């Protein structure tokens, strides 16, 4: 239980967004280009985190089908930013592998087939500025 | 000086004025005191020299109520104070005849004492018209000091030799401004908070609450000081540790903020030598920085910065921490 709370907190910390702000309007799902590929839809991310079903979210296909196109982040009227939430879920998986913080020049050497492409794409989009 | 005496006598004789306010000789050559002159023989004691530092403008508050006109001798800087008093309706301009007297800077006997000059019998070279050194005849012989070196600190940051209000001028004035008015304030601002606190603690702990600063100050012109009325429960004379005791100087400085002309009388009269003008000058500097340059007493029509505002005024939170890197 405590572990779940910690994970929820971690997701909030990494994403910097508050799942409780979600009003289930579905603009994210409407905007999502990967919608059909996802088992958990973008507008459901917040509910999973609020309920504490982090494992399910982390193990979902959805987490790795997100293209990090950021359309949902851009359009979310409530600043819940589902794309950031799911990105945080991915980060949790990766951090459990103890691959925590990286310097940019370390990346090429670390690029092993085990690192999910999606994580890199998202990371680059997220930190591009 | 003789020209001044002759003119004052003449004014009394022709009925223009009933009395004059000037300085008369003190018990020592360096401590003349403010006085009223009405009869011709009163003028035997009249003196006006480098040691006549006292700002006589405040005396007009009471003198203005007397029957008939009063002449008052004002140095250039004193006229700012007088203007400020006019703005606050504290003096009766109609009843005042202002003689703008010349000034080449006023002298501070403490400077001589610090230079080791003791046992003074007489002093020469302090006339307004002169331009030589000051010569002390002491019981240890003759000592000399440059006039400038003997000047009050305030005269080194003189506002200028022009009188801003007068009925007639007698005597020449000189520019004595050779220092930066806010340098001392800046020096304190540059200290760490601990140093600043230590500095003011040292200075203020000397205060004996003699009220000399308050009584001499031409801006502190209230009929009854807030510290003497019951409106704030701030007068608790029995209790040495009272509010008044602790906050006196800061409240006094605040009360004259925007009204203080920086005449420097507070520091001149403080028997403990506390540099009280540093409070006032800090307010003046802040007012200049925050709301644009303002010289109290320059223009009696100008709105005081504390009774004025603009929509975009500085927020209080931005008024502090400006020195922090």
């Amino acid at each position, binding site marked *: 239980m405590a572990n779940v709370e910690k994970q929820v907190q971690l997701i909030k910390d990494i994403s910097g967004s508050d799942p409780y702000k979600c009003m289930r309007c579905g603009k994210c799902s409407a905007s999502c280009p990967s919608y059909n590929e996802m088992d958990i839809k973008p507008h459901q991310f917040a509910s999973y985190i609020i309920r504490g079903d982090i494992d399910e979210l982390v193990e979902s296909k959805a987490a790795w089908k997100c293209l990090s196109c950021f359309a949902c982040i851009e359009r979310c009227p409530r600043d819940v930013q589902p794309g950031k939430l799911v990105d945080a879920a991915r980060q949790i998986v990766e951090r459990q592998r103890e691959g925590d913080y990286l310097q940019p020049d370390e990346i090429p050497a670390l690029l092993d087939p085990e690192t999910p492409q999606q994580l890199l794409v998202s990371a680059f989009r997220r930190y591009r500025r | 000086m003789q020209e001044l005496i002759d003119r004052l006598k003449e004014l009394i004789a022709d009925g223009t004025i009933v009395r004059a306010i000037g300085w008369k000789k003190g018990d020592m050559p360096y401590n003349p005191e403010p006085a009223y002159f009405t009869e011709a023989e009163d003028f035997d004691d009249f003196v006006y020299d480098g040691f006549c530092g006292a700002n006589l403008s405040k005396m007009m508050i009471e003198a203005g109520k007397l029957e008939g006109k009063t002449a008052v001798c004002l140095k250039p800087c004193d006229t700012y104070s007088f203007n400020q008093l006019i703005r606050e309706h504290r003096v009766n301009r109609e009843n005042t005849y202002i003689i703008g007297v010349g000034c080449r800077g006023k002298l501070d006997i403490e400077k001589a004492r610090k230079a080791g000059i003791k046992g003074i019998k007489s002093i020469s070279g302090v006339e307004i018209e002169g331009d030589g050194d000051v010569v002390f005849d002491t019981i240890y012989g003759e000592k000399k000091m440059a006039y400038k070196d003997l000047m009050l600190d305030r005269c080194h940051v003189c506002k200028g030799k022009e009188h801003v209000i007068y009925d007639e001028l007698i005597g020449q004035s000189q520019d004595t401004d050779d220092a930066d008015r806010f340098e001392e304030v800046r020096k304190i601002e540059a*200290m760490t908070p601990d140093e600043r606190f*230590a500095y003011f603690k040292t200075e203020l702990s000397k205060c004996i609450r003699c009220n000399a600063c308050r009584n001499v100050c031409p801006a502190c012109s209230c009929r009854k000081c807030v510290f003497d009325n019951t409106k704030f429960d701030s007068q608790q004379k029995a209790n040495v540790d009272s509010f008044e005791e602790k906050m006196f100087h800061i409240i006094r400085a605040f009360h004259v903020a925007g009204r203080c002309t920086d005449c420097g009388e507070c520091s001149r009269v403080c028997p403990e030598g506390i540099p009280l003008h540093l409070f006032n000058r800090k307010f003046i500097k802040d007012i200049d920085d925050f709301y644009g340059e303002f010289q109290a007493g320059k223009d009696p029509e100008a709105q005081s910065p504390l009774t004025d505002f603009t929509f975009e005024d500085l927020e209080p939170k931005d008024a502090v921490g400006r020195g922090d890197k």
Partner: protein
Amino acid sequence: MSMNEEKKEYRPLIVAFCCNWCSYAGADLAGSSRLSYPADVKIIRVPCSGRVNPMFILRAFERGADGVIICGCHPGDCHYSTGNYYARRRMALLFSMLEYIGVENGRTRVEWCSAAEGAKFSKTMNEFCEKIQSLGENVRLGDLRCKN
């Protein structure tokens, strides 16, 4: 600074002057919205921030307050049109003077808070309490004449 072996939990004493029209109502709104802030804050109702005489602030410090905050209507929104403008100048000068004599920054604060800003009121008070908590007990402002 001497530190006691066992540190008693320090709770600051904070006096808040709130104008009746905006900030006091904002504080009421914070209350009816149940937006909590520490009980260290005690509010004194004044008609306008322009009513706050610097004497009151110094008095509070002298009597042992650790922080004083003045809340008023936003510039332009004063119920009496202009009171907060004068307060703003007065406080800017006073705060700068307090800093000048070596008092820690942050013990005094001015915040504009409307009747609709209950959340802002609560947030402001929380921040202010935190700041005062970190500054600790007010020693310097207790006696500006500094005679111990």
